[in-house]
């Protein structure tokens, strides 16, 4: 469905690595400050056109959680030139598909369409950058739509409710602790004026990144971009991107959530972890490889081998980390025990495996296999026009540069066993962690 949130618990995929020797990437900046990235892929006469704004749910005013995502929905409602509800219709009648997404650090809009329709979708996207028109008549039912979206994604899914509670406990002060879709009680109070205020503050070319991927020539894209986006005035009052940061985290937190709809209980722990930073991606690269080593595959990873193959106490295990964030991120571990194994035993088993790994370090052959897959991922990535576009869009709205994207594969390739161990010792600090138990029955959760 349109206007979706990215899955919050997806494992950090190696395919999210950046850079790619063979892709033709061109960048330029318009005079009003809008950055642009053009990725050539001439295999089919199709283009992916995306505009990413450097604003996400972590930039929302206090008490207005969900406004970034609500505005994303309302961006389809019309402008001074496009009638209500016509935006997606026009794209569809030109054989295109459109959608949008909101995350903590960015909000993105895209169309996939025949390459000869690029000018059309650019004109429409540039138009709604400053000229959105909203009436109460369209805002009210759309608020019900996002509440139903929250029902589908969160209220009907005990794992998602558990995730919200853990994330809120992980971040003592940073807005990453607030759900992207918003807390229900604040969503119900979001108004048309809230949306317009947020829009006026953040939607401007000097806060946007254009990404065009597909059967296009960079010079032609540049000319079109100058003609459409280049005509939109910058917002001189764009505020600097400063979110409240975390204080020192001194106390391990524990969260227990019980819900009768849970069929498979599990233990999941996250630790505060550094993110990728411009010109400084080494620690994030080491953590990315650490996650692969510990939890990449049930049959070959450290957790999987110990708990699924040898001890047979787990149905599944994993580790995840995503360094693509503006502010500090998290590193996570989980164990789904087999029936009959208690939550205490599952947590103790997870701790035992990690402690043992900290003693022994990675197996050299395992590390070598992960490196092989990382370099292959760069070749496979060329097969996905949308994937390359998302890689650049997410990076450029998460505080990174094109150079950082292109240096990322080398950063991963350069990681040594010692780097992994240093990163592991630093990140596995219980004082900066949240340990969560998701169970079906309250008795177990309150033990």
């Amino acid at each position, binding site marked *: 469905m349109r206007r979706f949130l990215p899955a919050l618990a997806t494992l950090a995929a190696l395919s999210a690595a950046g850079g790619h020797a063979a892709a033709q990437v061109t960048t330029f900046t318009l005079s009003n400050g809008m950055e642009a990235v053009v990725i050539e892929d001439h295999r089919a006469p*199709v283009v992916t056109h995306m505009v990413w704004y450097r604003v996400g749910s972590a930039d929302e005013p206090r008490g207005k959680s969900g406004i970034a995502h609500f505005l994303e929905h309302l961006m389809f409602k019309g402008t001074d*030139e496009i009638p209500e509800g016509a935006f997606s219709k026009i794209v569809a009648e030109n054989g295109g*598909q459109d959608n949008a997404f909101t995350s903590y650090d960015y909000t993105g809009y895209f169309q996939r369409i025949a390459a000869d329709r690029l000018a059309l979708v650019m004109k429409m996207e540039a138009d709604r950058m400053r000229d959105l028109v909203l009436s109460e008549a369209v805002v009210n039912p759309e608020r019900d739509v996002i509440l139903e979206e929250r029902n589908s994604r969160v*209220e009907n899914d005990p794992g998602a409710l558990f995730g919200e509670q853990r994330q809120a406990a992980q971040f003592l002060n940073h807005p990453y602790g607030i759900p992207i879709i918003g807390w229900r009680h604040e969503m119900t109070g979001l108004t048309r004026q809230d949306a317009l205020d947020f829009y006026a503050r953040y939607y401007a070319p000097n806060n946007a990144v254009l990404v065009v991927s597909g059967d296009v020539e960079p010079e032609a894209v540049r000319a079109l971009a100058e003609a459409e986006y280049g005509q939109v005035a910058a917002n001189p009052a764009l505020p600097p991107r400063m979110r409240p940061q975390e204080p020192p985290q001194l106390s391990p937190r524990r969260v227990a959530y019980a819900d009768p709809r849970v069929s498979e209980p599990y233990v999941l722990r996250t630790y505060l972890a550094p993110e990728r930073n411009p010109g400084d991606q080494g620690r994030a690269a080491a953590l990315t490889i650490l996650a692969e080593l510990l939890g990449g595959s049930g049959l070959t990873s450290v957790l999987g081998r110990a708990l699924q193959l040898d001890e047979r106490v787990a149905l599944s295990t994993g580790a995840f980390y995503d360094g693509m964030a503006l502010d500090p991120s998290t590193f996570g571990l989980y164990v789904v025990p087999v029936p009959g194994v208690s939550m205490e035993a599952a947590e103790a088993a997870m701790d035992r495996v990690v402690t043992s790994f900290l003693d022994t370090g990675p197996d050299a052959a395992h590390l070598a296999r992960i490196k092989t897959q990382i370099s292959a991922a760069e070749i496979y990535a060329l097969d996905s026009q949308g994937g390359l576009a998302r890689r650049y869009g997410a990076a450029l709205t998460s505080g990174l540069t094109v150079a950082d994207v292109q240096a990322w594969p080398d950063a991963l390739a350069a990681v040594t066993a010692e780097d992994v161990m240093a990163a592991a010792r630093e990140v596995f600090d219980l004082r900066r962690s949240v340990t969560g138990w998701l169970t079906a029955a309250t008795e177990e959760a309150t033990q």
Partner: protein
Amino acid sequence: MIRYALIAVAAIALAAPSRAATDIVEVTSPGGITAWLVEEPSIPIIAIEVGFSGGSTLDPVGKEGVGAFAVGLLEEGAGDLDAAAFARRGEELAARFGFSSGRDGASLSAQMLVETRDATVDLLRLALTQPRFDADAVERVRAQMLSGVRSNATDPNAIAGETFARLAFPDDPYGRPDGGTEASLTAMTVEDLRAQHRALFVRGRAKIGVVGAITPAELGPLLDRLLGDLPADGPAVPPVATPALTGGVTVVDFDTPQSVVAFGQRGIDRHDPDFFPAYVLNHILGGGGFSSRLTTEVREKRGLTYGVYAYLADYQRADLWMGGVASANDRVGEAIAVIQAEWRRMAEAGATDAELDAAKRFLTGAYPLRFDSNRAIAGILVGVQEDGLGIDYIARRNDLVNAVTAADVGRVARTLMDPDGLRFVVVGRPAGVEPTN
């Protein structure tokens, strides 16, 4: 002043995805195995998709889930490699592959680097022809499948789907749980799994699509290497199934804030002359894009849901016209009433010329967008073969959409749409929704 209207009425220049439409080559191996190939030399990778018709339809009564169970063991050790060694080998080759199981077929989806092509094909052949079914691997996969059964029992979407399938096909494999039951999975033996593996992975039922940096001369011997050791034929697939649906509302009590609804009526065969009119009609009613009548009425105007949709569900042995929606328990009754009214309005009055025109523009323009990766194209090549549509189908497909007339759509709306035969399965605590029989 922006002239959107002018741009919108311009002809869609793109009739079909150029390369895949025109450059499909049928390759027959020295051993007689046939595949469709699109050469794409620009990236040094190859995508291979293989579909084996049959799937969980071939699960014997009482052994529900045996097909999925057997397929789940193909990546758990083969030949002289145990499960962990097999997985390590795949990682060393940087190959990306998986086996999966569905109601109508089992499949292999693989991507490989040109530089490790032959070794990857050898590893896949080992999985297809010499799975080990080691006792510890069998127990591991059994535990995972039992976990899936338990999860489905508390997942409103899964409950809705399984309940609908049971109502539509009470006496057919389609109505039985393809992931098995606690009883069937617990009783499954290694002999059951070996037998089902032999029944499912049959050379004569394989459809193959290949896209990537490989020539026809290279592909032929590779096909024999991958599939030549499989048995030529297997047990017959059951005959066509007739849905036993009646109109009405079924409520499954489940304590959750938002009711999940599956709905449907009888469908239309993929080879029926009215298939394309029905396909276009469904798009207008509840298809993709964001301007369907159901989306407009249920979501945009009333805010009753995040998503509502309808689709032609063409199984290999039966046809349904299905849909879905989810709404808060106190609003789902209204959502169902609006869907029922829209179903009736379309059946009685059909679509407008403007709707038909817009639908054709979208469907013909969006078709090429599906051909956006080697893997996606290989999957389409398999689907076209499974449906028996012919090697020129991709080039012809948009003409078939464009040939649909207002009279066609009106006829299908009157004859196929059955507002009184529409069955709703509601999982939740819906307020004011009375079950019927």
